[in-house]
């Protein structure tokens, strides 16, 4: 069949209900192939999506702990050792794409009881803060440890927002998620560096600038890309903090 209309070739006119017989079989085969092709494409595209990881909200494992609120420089809760469990430091976030700065500033360096929902991916835990109550009597005998410097490191990986990466969204990383991550960080969610190589067996790091202060819009152009960063790493209980020198930042891909 070609483009040319000949005397004997079927001629289709849409508003005439009778379709030429020679075209009926072709159109039926095409219709079935069209619907079937879309179905196969759906199966192929959907079933081969990348694994978003094991992160997620731990709704059945509510968080409730007493500890000390600090800004390092993002809100964290320092929790004392308990039996065989060593002291821990939890990153904090608010509801939705909001940080927990209001609560942390109100109770900075104060003892509190914090209730919330953990968002957990591997050994990265972010607490979505629910209720914070001051503990007037303090946490008995607890003085948070000073950060332990681990030296200067050059790391490659991705800057994510700590809450989505932890599992608030699955997937919660990559360029398709960049605008969301940007919005989360603007809202006060702590930025997390997900490294391709570990430091003391940890692959994620709470980020701060090289002087330990909050990061601003200067990380926006690096967000969600595969980058190389250099800076000082320190350990705060079980939480790694990466004080990045953004002047050394390099986009790898």
């Amino acid at each position: 069949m070609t483009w040319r209309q000949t005397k004997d070739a079927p001629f289709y006119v849409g508003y005439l209900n009778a379709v030429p017989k020679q075209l009926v079989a072709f159109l039926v085969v095409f219709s079935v192939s069209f619907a079937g092709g879309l179905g196969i494409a759906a199966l192929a595209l959907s079933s081969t999506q990348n694994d978003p990881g094991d992160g997620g909200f731990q709704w059945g494992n509510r968080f409730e702990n007493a500890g000390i609120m600090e800004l390092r420089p993002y809100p964290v809760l320092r929790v004392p050792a308990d039996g065989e469990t060593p002291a821990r430091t939890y990153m904090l976030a608010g509801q939705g794409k909001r940080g927990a700065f209001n609560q942390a500033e109100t109770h900075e360096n104060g003892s509190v009881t914090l209730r919330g929902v953990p968002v957990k991916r591997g050994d990265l835990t972010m607490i979505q803060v629910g209720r914070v109550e001051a503990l007037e009597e303090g946490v008995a005998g607890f003085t948070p440890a000073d950060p332990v410097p681990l030296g200067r490191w050059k790391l490659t990986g991705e800057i994510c927002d700590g809450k989505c990466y932890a599992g608030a969204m699955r997937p919660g990383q990559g360029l398709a998620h960049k605008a969301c991550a940007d919005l989360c960080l603007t809202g006060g969610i702590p930025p997390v560096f997900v490294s391709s190589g570990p430091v003391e067996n940890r692959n994620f790091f709470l980020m701060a600038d090289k002087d330990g202060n909050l990061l601003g819009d200067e990380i926006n152009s690096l967000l969600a890309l595969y980058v190389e960063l250099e800076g000082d790493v320190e350990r705060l209980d079980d939480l790694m903090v990466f004080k990045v020198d953004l002047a050394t930042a390099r986009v790898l891909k």
Partner: protein
Amino acid sequence: MSVQYTPVIWNRNKIFYDAVLLIAVALYLYIYIRVAPGYEDVTKPIDGAILRMRAFGSCAFLMLTIILCIGPLARLDRRFLPLLYNRRHFGVMTAGIAAVHANYVLTWYFNFSPVDRYVALLSSNTSYGQILGFPFEALGIAALLILFVLAATSHDFWLSFLGAPIWKALHMFIYAAYVCVVLHVALGALQGAGDPIFTSIVAACVVLVSGLHFATGRMEARRDRGEETAKASLQEKGWLVAGEIDEIDDDCAKVVTLSDDERVAIFKYEGKLSAITNACAHQNGPLGEGKVLWGCITCPWHGYQYNLTDGRAPAPFTEKISTYRLKLIGSTILLDPNALPPGTHVDPVIIGEAA
């Protein structure tokens, strides 16, 4: 054809067309959202909103790809012409599916924030100076706006109101929309962790659309070269040799190319010859690839009809197109290349009464 504007003039073929479309789209979405996740190799399921966002987004991309293939396929092979007949419903449905995708993006990635979601959409990523990390959402917005405008102006009212040339030019923006969509996907979803199937399907779609348009362009150019029979006649000054009577089937036409934008269709019917412009007044459909039905030239795209001798649509319709004068010397057809005003009556040339 209709003399009054109604939202949709339904007929059995349109209903069948839309039914096949709806079934195919529903099947795609059902398999993507309900069936395929059972075969995913994931530790924990992908978020439902993101899954649906991907399902509707990829569906809109595939639909747009198919829409852009229909035109060249129908040029290459007449059997695909029925797909062209109701293509505007395909386009409107695609705009709807794309809008659902956008709504999921807006109510998921740009929600749960103190910033208004529309403000967040436009302001959260402004790295327009870089390729990797480019705010690909802006490309999606541009494509969606184009699809909305095209869907809103797809009705024949707008075709009549704007006139065929402006309407046609406006609807050529579908290509701009496709470029935006391809870049939207390439700079967004394709930048995730390697997914060879997704990458292959997107690449295959782009190659298919480009390849079909290239092949059609070559075919048209070859046809134009083959039809350049309209050369200055030695016998009759001012007339062009258009071909031989035997080249034309009964009730069919031969198309003669006068210039890049002017073609003439010479029809043979009931022992007579008449010439009219090749462009249908409706959507510039190729009348010369149509047929004479009930004594009228019938466009192969949407069935618009014109009288053979004056280029006027039969009453009560009002469309009219240019006619041309013909002359017959022996079995050779001569054509006066000067188009007459649309609707001008020209007596047909009677075969057998040649000079």
